[in-house]
């Protein structure tokens, strides 16, 4: 494809003809503030935070305006900053943003842009309309419409990525609000709890139930692994708090899942910290499974297998490996059965 050249903030950059200004800028490491835009979703041009100046004159939304060859774009000047502050000010005015009580504190795009633009608290002269809070209807998702900026990302996330089309907007003007299905609460809708909408919500308007009370966003550590529940192999960023508790699971954009997850990959991990977990080897003594030391249990197994091998031959022993274990463990299990026990009686549940 032919490339185009344009100037952004005095720097000559190149892009493709079907790209928007914001896309070209971000490909070239230039960050233009934006809220309703998300690279995975269709463009709606709703929030106007991403305005830039084109050719020294017009202010345009860079997330919808196509980049053109020879264009001259400025992403920040006094006028642009004033316009952005106006946009942010209105959002603060319309909502009730108290970061102290918000799950997104420290991980909120609105908060970030407000700090970047040194925003003051809104005057409360214009009456503020209390909006709906739904903390209870779903065991997975909670919603606080008072911090919703109506960017519509959740609507598009559910419609375009998860393709369950649960969220929608109802009414107009300052009465605009989110509804699930045909005006139900989220817990009573057909929501499948994949959490895609929460992951893409720029504020704390949507959050996950289980994260409550588990700590501050900036204290969490992140490590990636692969979901255990199906062959898609979704890559997940797991967040843990300083106490070592699992706080949340977020889809990783580099994985085959491109950031998406299903309900199992999102919420299916309590088992790992369940008190029912085994923590001592058990050996059957007088018919009863009783606690034993690792040494005792391992000696028992090795002696038992050796004895059976000697008396009945290696084919009297079989091993079941596991499709939930790693490659390394599966490799070792089959090597153990073949090279140490001496039989090919090793299988796993591929067929089940």
């Amino acid at each position, binding site marked *: 494809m032919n490339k185009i050249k344009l100037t952004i903030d005095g720097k000559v950059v190149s892009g493709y003809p079907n790209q928007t200004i914001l896309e070209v800028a971000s490909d070239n490491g230039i960050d233009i503030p934006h809220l309703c835009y998300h690279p995975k979703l269709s463009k709606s041009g709703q929030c106007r935070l991403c305005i830039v100046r084109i050719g020294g004159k017009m202010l345009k939304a860079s997330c919808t305006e196509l980049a053109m060859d020879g264009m001259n774009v400025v992403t920040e000047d006094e006028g642009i900053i004033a316009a952005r502050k106006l946009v942010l000010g209105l959002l603060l005015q319309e909502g009730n943003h108290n970061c102290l009580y918000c799950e997104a504190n420290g991980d909120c795009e609105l908060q970030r842009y407000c700090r970047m633009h040194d925003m003051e608290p809104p005057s409360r002269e214009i009456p503020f309309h209390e909006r709906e809070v739904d903390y209870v209807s779903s065991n997975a998702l909670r919603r606080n419409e008072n911090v919703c900026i109506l960017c519509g990302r959740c609507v598009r996330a559910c419609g375009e990525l998860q*393709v369950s089309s649960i969220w929608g907007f109802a009414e107009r003007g300052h009465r605009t609000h989110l509804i699930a299905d045909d005006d139900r609460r989220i817990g009573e809708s057909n929501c499948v709890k*994949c959490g895609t909408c929460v992951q893409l919500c720029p504020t704390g308007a949507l959050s996950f139930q289980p994260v409550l009370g588990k700590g501050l966003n900036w204290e969490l550590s992140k*490590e990636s*692994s*692969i979901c*255990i*529940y*199906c*062959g*898609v*192999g979704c890559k997940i960023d*797991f967040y843990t708090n300083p106490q070592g508790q699992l706080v949340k699971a977020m889809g990783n954009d580099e*994985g*085959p899942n491109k950031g998406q*997850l*299903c*309900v*199992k*990959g999102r*919420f*299916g991990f309590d088992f790992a910290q369940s008190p029912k*977990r*085994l*923590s001592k080897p*058990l*050996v*059957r003594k007088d018919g009863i499974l009783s606690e034993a030391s*690792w040494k005792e249990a*391992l000696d028992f197994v090795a002696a038992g*297998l050796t004895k*059976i091998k000697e008396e009945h031959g290696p*084919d*009297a022993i*079989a091993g*079941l*490996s*596991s*499709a*939930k274990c*790693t*490659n*390394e*463990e*599966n*490799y*070792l*299990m*089959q090597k*153990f*059965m*073949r090279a140490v*026990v001496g*039989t*090919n*009686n*090793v299988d*796993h*549940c*591929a*067929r089940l």
Partner: protein
Amino acid sequence: MTNSIGEIPLSEGYLVIGSNTTENHPVIGSMIKGQVQNQGKKLIVADPRRIELAQFADYYFPINPGTNIAILNGFMHVIVKENLYNKEFVEARCEGFEEMAQSLEKYTPEYVANICGIHKAGDIVEAARLMASLKPMALYYSMGITQFVSGVNGVKSTANLQMLLGNMGVEGGGVNPLRGQNNVQGACDMGALPATYPAYQPVASEENREKYEKAWGVKELSTKPGLTVVEIMNAAHAGDVKALYCMGENPIMSDPNQEHVIEALKKLDLLVVQDIFLTETAQYADVVLPSCSFLEKAGTATNTERRVQPMHRVLKPWPGAKDDWWIIEEIANRMGAGWTYNKPADIFEEIRKVTPSYAGITYKRIEKEAIQWPCPTESHPGTKVLHRESFGRGKGLFTAIEYTPPYEETDREYPLVLTTGRILQHFHTGTMTRNSRILDETVPEGWVEIHPNDASNFNFTNGEVISVSTRRGSIRIRVRVAERSKPGVIFLPFHFYESCANRLTVDCLDPVCKIPEYKVCSCKVEKISA
């Protein structure tokens, strides 16, 4: 999968057969739905249940369980008869076409519609024409193709169709089996199979034997293929297998014909179970070894598109639990193995040496790159699409495949067809999902799905507890009246020990690959008198 998940947007359409994708492989399900709903791609679905994807489909075929081969043959009959197949591809890349074409002759749309229980035979013709116009079309399937006594033939049929349409070796095409567990692919690649060493090298070959004896520094590896899961249980029952070492598996819940499995396990002299919970199977063990959950592990897993991905330690090991590899090594060394692996990376380095398709994959590379095997050298980028220039054996072989009915047919006593499967919120035997609050609360118990017609015949109301029996056993379970299943077919998820589906299933096997026929058996349903 012959192709990659990332190619979903490159397909013009999809045939999904025997896969309830949005529940069992939900993220792939969403990607397909998105292409259909938002990009106008075409979708053809064949499944006994009116699954979610059926609502998005251009053509949906509610086929009788176990009739996949018939409908695939029906599509191919039309494609051959109307000359819609990809002649160039068939001539250049395949062989055996004539024979197969002949075998397709009798599979007229009417004949097939009759076998499959479809009302409109004309839809088969139209869907076949649509498929031929989609360049390329991707075919997705799952256990709904394989879990039959005719499972291997079902798989061959899917390949027949895709070769006929020239959809092999091209981006956005392919035959794409969706693997049900996160590392089934890897476990198979690693040789956790009775007949093959890593990378599917047959144990029966002398050459391979020598190769592995040398690599492992041992003598006298066995060239006799071993037993499969279900055969192991049968051998234990017969007293031929005396010891079973079971890592992370729960055969009492996952294997067919539960009674038989329990009897078999009881007969063992030594049952060792290595797991994170005291599972149903562990309760029969002589030794139980507590292992780490996947969140406490490091290593690699290989997904359904052959991508080898790194797993990292997210949580500290549960107090008292050990890594599975450590436990195996400890036992091996007590039996004189002399192994010296200190960490998963040591094992992976050995895997690379003995597994040609993994030779070019390193821990370092997969942190940054998405690599799909085969990847023979460190400079090889991996393989997104298989069979680009040729098939493993050279030319793609068409196989004439006849439809054969499932093992158990319905009769007066057992008039309904029982089919089993998974649901979105739970996994396999429930060990993990039922111990995760949100999932367990969302679906706390099992149910049996029955069509309203059947429900009214038997006078069942929604939510009533009834009994479901087969020749092997009987369970009590709540009824869910829904139009998803066909009349005459009932569906049972198998995650719940209280209403264990595998108490009912039949343990007959596909003669080649020994997969049990989970997807069909005949059953009866009865009211429980108060």
